[in-house]
């Protein structure tokens, strides 16, 4: 009962608002609380990697060992690729409509220039070959110690596929062990999650105290374009889920309220990994193997907010420097935005290495990009996290089979992997 109170979305929002007010009106207190917030986020991160790996391995393996679930793989692939085009098209349209970098005031440009004075370094421009080599888990132990999430996901899916197809009696046992580990890590995560509202209060107090007002106002058009694009994408997914009868009306989406709120307020989609799986399995009746496989994959590879971010930062810079993009440039940006936006983990300046080759290919100066990414992280990051969770949930809901058919084929009602029951 006590845990439910502190993780209730209303309490989380209240805690975040109080934290924001502390950071705004008592910045010294906000800065003092920030380490506590960081400590809490670090504690939440303890189980994220184990949950992600065990969910992916067991989810993929179980799906492939189950003949009827195996058939859904092509469907997931089609849904995944198709949905990538939606944030891309919306961001291009909104960027064309709003022109986020056009007509910046002299004060706004000066404010950005002052930030460049402090960080007068060129954005690194890795080659596209290096980028793809980095996705291959050539040394999984190194990738685990360096938190190379994309490689870890590729490795986990490959291991899941191996266990799914291997013709050895111990495979079932191995998958059961991994599934047990997943349940154990999930339980630990839930314990740590209990004081979420307090952790977010401290985190938000520190974040608000550090927001740079001058840079915020110089990027206001960019923020408007980003939130407009994000909300349009959210709306399109919601309409698609209802129109395609993947959820039982708008009210059913309330089941995702907790993970969506959590990811938005914590500015971190990984924290909402376990709650998203639980919400899909318990409230939206998704098969647990499907959720275990598709949600971690979606959180890594369906970062639709990042796609919007990459495209709008590029359009902002093109506007600012007065560069007209040709139809070929737009097509290049669309494809590169989908690839670059989904293959990067983390927000802010960590996106710069993916953005640099795109900007270079379009002949757009890139040094300002790292300033914009770093300065906008606290503003756009929450919506990126929320869209990542919503896109992962949409992938699961659109990719899964009809719930009734699924239950009939398996002969059992859907169950929560943690054994909590639906």
């Amino acid at each position, binding site marked *: 009962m006590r845990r439910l109170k502190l993780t209730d979305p209303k309490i989380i929002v209240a805690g975040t608002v109080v934290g924001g007010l502390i950071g705004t009106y008592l910045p010294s207190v906000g800065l003092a609380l920030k380490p506590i917030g960081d400590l809490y986020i670090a504690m939440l991160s303890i189980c994220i990697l184990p949950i992600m790996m065990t969910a992916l391995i067991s989810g993929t393996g179980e799906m492939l060992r189950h003949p009827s679930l195996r058939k859904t793989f092509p469907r997931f692939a089609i849904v995944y690729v198709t949905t990538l085009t939606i944030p891309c098209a919306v961001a291009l349209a909104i960027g064309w409509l709003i022109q986020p970098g056009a007509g910046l005031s002299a004060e706004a440009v000066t404010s950005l*220039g002052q930030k*460049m004075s402090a960080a007068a370094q060129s954005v690194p421009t890795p080659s596209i070959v290096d980028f793809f080599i980095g996705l291959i888990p050539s040394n999984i132990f190194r990738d685990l110690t360096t938190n190379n999430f994309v490689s870890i996901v590729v490795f986990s899916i490959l291991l899941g596929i191996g266990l799914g197809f291997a013709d050895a009696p111990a495979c079932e046992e191995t998958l059961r062990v991994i599934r047990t580990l997943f349940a154990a890590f999930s339980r630990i995560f839930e314990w740590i999650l209990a004081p979420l509202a307090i952790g977010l209060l401290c985190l938000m107090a520190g974040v608000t105290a550090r927001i740079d007002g001058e840079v915020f106002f110089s990027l206001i058009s960019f923020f408007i374009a980003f939130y407009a694009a994000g909300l349009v994408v959210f709306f399109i997914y919601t309409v698609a889920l209802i129109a395609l009868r993947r959820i039982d009306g708008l009210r059913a989406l309330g089941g995702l309220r907790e993970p969506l709120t959590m990811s938005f307020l914590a500015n971190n989609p990984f924290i909402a990994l376990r709650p998203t799986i639980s919400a899909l399995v318990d409230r939206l009746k998704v098969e647990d193997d499907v959720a275990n496989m598709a949600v971690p994959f979606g959180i890594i590879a369906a970062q639709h907010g990042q796609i919007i971010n990459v495209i709008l930062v590029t359009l902002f810079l093109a506007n600012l420097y007065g560069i007209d993009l040709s139809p070929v440039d737009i097509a290049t940006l669309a494809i590169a935005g989908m690839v670059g936006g989904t293959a990067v983990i983390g927000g802010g300046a960590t996106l710069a290495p993916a953005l640099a080759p795109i900007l270079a290919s379009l002949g757009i*100066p890139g040094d300002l990009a790292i300033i914009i990414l770093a300065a906008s992280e606290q503003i756009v990051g929450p919506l990126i996290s929320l869209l990542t969770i919503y896109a992962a949930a949409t992938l699961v809901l659109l990719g899964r089979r009809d719930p009734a058919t699924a239950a009939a084929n398996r002969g059992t009602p859907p169950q929560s992997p943690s054994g909590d029951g639906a």
Partner: protein
Amino acid sequence: MRTVVALLTLWCASFTLAAAAQDYLPGVADLVASGELKVGVFTWDAPPMIVTDEDGKAGGYDVRIAEAIARTLGVKLTIVRTEKTANAVIEQVARGDVDIAVSYISRTPTRALKVLFTRPYLSQSHTLLLNRTFVAQRGGGCPTVRAFLDEIDGTPVGILNGSAHVERVLHAQPNANLVRYDSFDEMMQAVRSGAVVQSFQGEVTVHRYLADHPAMRVFTQVCEFPRWTDNIAIAVNGRRPELVDFLNVFLDHVVVSADHESTTLTIDPWYDE
């Protein structure tokens, strides 16, 4: 009280120096006897070396150095700001209209045919200011000196009229496509707008300009040629070789250092005010 003592000391010292001037070396004796040091400084501002305050009075590092020289010689300082370019100031020194020029003057072989030079009191890199869009569309990065010289055979480069940089660039690349500007500010704004994609100048003024105009950093990028140095020195009238010796010894007490973000001047306190 300490100020009064210092002023009295200087006043006494000036009498002593004037009385002793007849024992001085020829190129210095008549200058000290005249009681005045005329220093040429060009009319445009080159912060932080040369600036003009709200009352129109000249200031900056070069003027501070000139003040310290006059104080050491025990003579009155007269700043003469009538010439618009460094080349014109050199002609002014050569004619003897002024005794010396402390005016962000670069030493060049051509100028050394007309005036004497002290040893450099500042060594700076030659620097390119490039339009960022031009850099991005060219593939990014800074050119080498060789690549720059090859490129300006066709691509225009902005340059300040009457500066030593004109001579330097034309010596290294006779076919250089130079776009000459009479004002440093006009040249900087031309690079920002893309009217000229690059300009060539010393590092001190360009870094200071970017610090004073942060918006320029958004549209322009600095590339330095650290091994292509520009030595700044005091120009002295050819009839005063002994004054050059005196100034070289005086410069032992002056340090001007430039880096990417700022330029600093240090004069030993007993020569400074």
